[in-house]
C-alpha cells in the first residue's frame, strides 16, 4: 500500500509514492537515487545518514519518509551548486578530514547544522556559560560532532576542518 508525498531534495522537487515503512533515508537512496546520504547502521547510531531537513540536522534513517511530506531536504551534495564546493567541502579537503569518505557527507551536513546551532547560541554539555554567545573551541566542536562516527579515525582533522570553516564564516 503506497502513499504519496512531496519532497524537495537539494532544490529539486519530487512527488513519490512510498510504503509507509520506508524511512526518509531509504526514500532518498532507493526511490530517488540520491546517494549522498549514507546508510551506516540504520539505527541512528552512526550519523552517516545525516541530512538537513528544513535547515536542521537529522538522522534520516530514524525518520519515516511520510512524516516529512513537504519537507526540504539538503544533503551534502546540495550544499553547493554542481561543480563548486561549499566552505565546509573546501575545509574538509584542505584538512584531509576523511579517508574512506563514507561518513563524510553526513559529517559535512552535521557540521553545517552544528555551525547554525552555535550561531543561534544553543549550548552543549561542555558549554560553560549557558547564556552567552558560543565560542567554538575544539572541545565544543568535538562534543557537537560526536554523533557522527568515523572509523577511519579522521576526528582530529574533522575538528580542524570545522574550526577552519567556522573561522572563515565569521
Amino acid at each position, binding site marked *: 500500500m503506497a502513499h504519496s508525498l512531496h519532497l524537495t531534495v537539494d532544490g529539486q522537487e519530487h512527488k513519490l509514492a512510498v*510504503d509507509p*515503512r*520506508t524511512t526518509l533515508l*531509504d526514500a532518498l*537512496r*532507493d526511490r530517488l*537515487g540520491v*546517494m*549522498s*546520504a*549514507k*546508510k*551506516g*547502521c*540504520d*539505527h541512528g*547510531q*552512526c550519523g*552517516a545518514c545525516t541530512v538537513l531537513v528544513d535547515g536542521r540536522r537529522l538522522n534520516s534513517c530514524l525518520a519515516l519518509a511520510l512524516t516529512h511530506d513537504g519537507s526540504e531536504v539538503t*544533503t*551534502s*551534495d546540495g*550544499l*553547493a551548486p554542481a561543480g563548486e*564546493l561549499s566552505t*565546509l*567541502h573546501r575545509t*574538509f*579537503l*584542505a584538512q*584531509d578530514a*576523511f*579517508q*574512506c*569518505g*563514507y*561518513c*563524510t*557527507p553526513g559529517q*559535512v551536513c552535521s557540521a553545517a547544522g552544528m555551525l547554525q546551532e552555535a550561531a543561534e547560541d544553543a549550548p552543549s554539555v561542555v558549554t560553560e556559560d549557558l547564556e552567552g554567545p558560543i565560542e567554538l573551541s575544539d572541545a565544543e*566542536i*568535538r*562534543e557537537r*560532532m*560526536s*554523533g*557522527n*562516527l*568515523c*572509523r*577511519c*579515525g*579522521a*576526528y*582530529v*582533522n*574533522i*575538528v580542524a576542518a570545522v574550526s577552519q570553516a567556522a573561522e572563515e564564516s565569521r
Partner: protein
Amino acid sequence: MSDLLPTTSIGTHQVRLDGPDKVRGRAPYAYEHPLDDPLYLYPLQAEIARGRAAHIDTSAAEAADGVVHVLTHTNAPDLEDTEDGELAILRSAEIGFRGQYLGAVIATTPEQARYAAGLVDIGYEQEEHDVELREDHPASREPESGSGDVFAGDFDAAFAEAAVSIDERYSTPMEHNNPMEPHTTVARWDGSELTLWTSTQGAHPARSTLAPILGLDPDRIRIISPHVGGGFGSKGVPHADMMLAALAAIAAPGRPVKYAVSRQQMFSITGYRAPTLQHIRLGARADGTLTAFAYDAVSLSSQTKEFPEEATKPGRMMYAGDNRRLTQRVVPLDVPVPSWMRAPGEAPGMVGLEIAMDELAVAAGLDPIELRVRNEPETDPDTGLPFNRRRLVDCLREGAKRFGWEERNPQPRTRRENGWLIGMGVAASTYPAGRQPGSVARIRRMPAGYEVAIGAADLGTGTWTALSQVAADALDVPIGQVELRIGDTALPNATVAGGSTGLVSWSAAVFAATEAFRAEHGTDPAVGAEAQGEAEANPAAEKFALHSFGAHFAEVRIHPATGEIRLGRMFGMFSAGRIVNPSTARSQFIGGMTMGVGMALHEKGELDPRFGHVVNHDLAEYHVPVNADIARIEAEWLDEEDPHAGPLGARGIGEIGIVGAAAAIANAAFNATGVRIRDLPIFGDAFLPT
C-alpha cells in the same frame, strides 16, 4: 639495493583526487551504482549456535507481496567446490554458529524482503554448543595455517636463573572491524556472466576465491569496486555475504540483487578479531638484558573455518634473548568465522608484549625506553637475517623528545591535576614490510597524458591519489597528466589492499609497466600506444628481515573517585621508509592510532555463552571512539628512504599506527595510578578499590 626513483610529486602534499566527489557524496560505493529494476535481499540467519534447521517453511513468505524468490539449502544453486566452510553456504541444514546464513528472501522492495523474511518458519534441532575460550580448553591445538612454534636454547633453565623476571597473563577481546560502509554486494547474473558491484579490498583476489567455488571461469565474473567505505581487513577476503548475493542473483537471473549487510549482521558474518589469551614470561640479567623469552598464546577460532590470530608473531622478531619459546594455539569453537582485522597478530601481540616490557622495566628499575634500547637484537632473532634498517631506537628517542617524555615521573601515582591522576606511557610498534608479486599495470598514451590501469583498491588509504603520484613520477609527467583507473577486474590483475602491502605492490607494477612502455614506445609515444608490466617479488626479502618500526607515547588522566579514564594526548613516531603523500599518510597513521584508542578503552564484543551471539551487536553498544574521545593525536615520521624497498623506497603504513598503541595507553594508566592493566579494554572499574 635498487636505485631510488627521483621524485617530483612523491613526497608532496596532494589533496585527495577523489576528495571533491567524496565530500559531496557523489563517489559511488557498492550500493550506489545506478542500475535499473533491482531486487532486494534480506537474509535468514540461524538462531541457535549448533545443530540443524530441521524444517524451513517458506510458503507464507513466498505468498507475501513482492516476493520473487526464497532461497534455502533445499533450492540453492550448486557449488563446484565446498572446501571453504565459510563460503560454501546453503549446502545443508547443519548449523555451525549463531547467525549463519540459512537462506534469503528476494523481493521487489527492501521493506517487502525484510517483512517476508520474518514469515519464514524455521524449526531447529539444537545441540549443545561451546563458545568459551580458555587457556586449558581440551580442543586447543596447533593451527593448521600458522607460522609454527619456536624453541631455542633452554628457556626453563635461563628463566630459573634470571636476576629479574616477570610471569604474567594478558588478554585481548573479540573486536569488530566495523567499517562505516557495511559490506554490500549488488549481484547480477545474465545467464553466462556474473557481475558483482561490491565493497572489497581486492577485486581480483575476491574473484579468484569465488570462481572455483561457483564453478565459473574467472573470465565470467566481473567485480567492480571503485570506492570502498573502509575495510580494516574485513573486506580483505570475501565473506559469506558476497556468496549469498551471488547465489541469489543466480537463483533470480536477469535483475540486479542488492544486499547491504546490516550493522547487526556484520557481527556474525563479516569477520572479527579473535580474542587472545597470552602467557608471557621474561627473564633478564640485572641490567635488563633479556636471557629468557616465552610467549604462549591461545586464540579463538571457528569450527566452520580456521583463522589463527597469531599474537606470538611480533614476539618472534622484536627483542634479543637467546633462550626462547613461542607457541601459538587455537581453540576452534561454535562461533562465527574470525578473520583479518588491522594488523592481525601484531595488534593483539604487541599488547601483551609491550605491557610485559613495561613491567620488566619496573622490575629492573629501568626507564622503559632504556630497557628496549638494551634489548635491540643485532639480527632478526626469528630468521637470523640482518634487518633492512631497524630504527626502533631512533623512533623511541626522537619520539620521547617531541612528546616531552622527560617530564614523566617513573614513580606511579605522583602527578595530580584538578583532581585527576595523570600518567605517561610508551610502547614500541612494528609491522612487516611485505610486497606482493603478481600485480600488473597497463599504461596507455592518451591525447592529454597517460592512462594507468590496475585493479587496485582505495578503502580510504589514498590509493587514487598516492598511486597517481607514483605513476606521475614513474612516467616523469605532472600528476594532472595521469588518469588512474582502479577497482575493477576488467583492469589488469592487482593484489589485495591488505597487510600494508597495497601501494608498494601496485607501485612495483607501475614501475615495470613504465619500463616496458618506454622500451617499446620511447618518450614521445603515439596516442594509443600501450604496454604493461608485472610486479616481481622483492629480491631483498631473501636477504633482509624487512620491517617498519614505531613508538607510541600516550598521556592519560584517570579520576580516582570514578575510575573514568580519558586520553589526554598521544604521539606516534614512525619509521616507514619514504612517505608518498604526507597528508594522507599522516591521516592513516593517526587513524591507526585512533583505532588503537578504541582497542585500549572501548572495544569489546560480548559473546554470550548461553546463546553464542555477540550481544552488543551494534554501534550503540559496541563502542568505537567518537570525536569527543579523541583529543590530541599527532603522528610524525623519520625522514628516510628504505634502500631495500625498490625504486619507491617506501613501506606500507596501513597497520603500524594501531600496533602498540593500546599498550602505550595501558602503560600510561599504570604510571597514573599504579594499577597494572593486563586485560583490554580498560574500563573504569579497574581503578576502583575492590
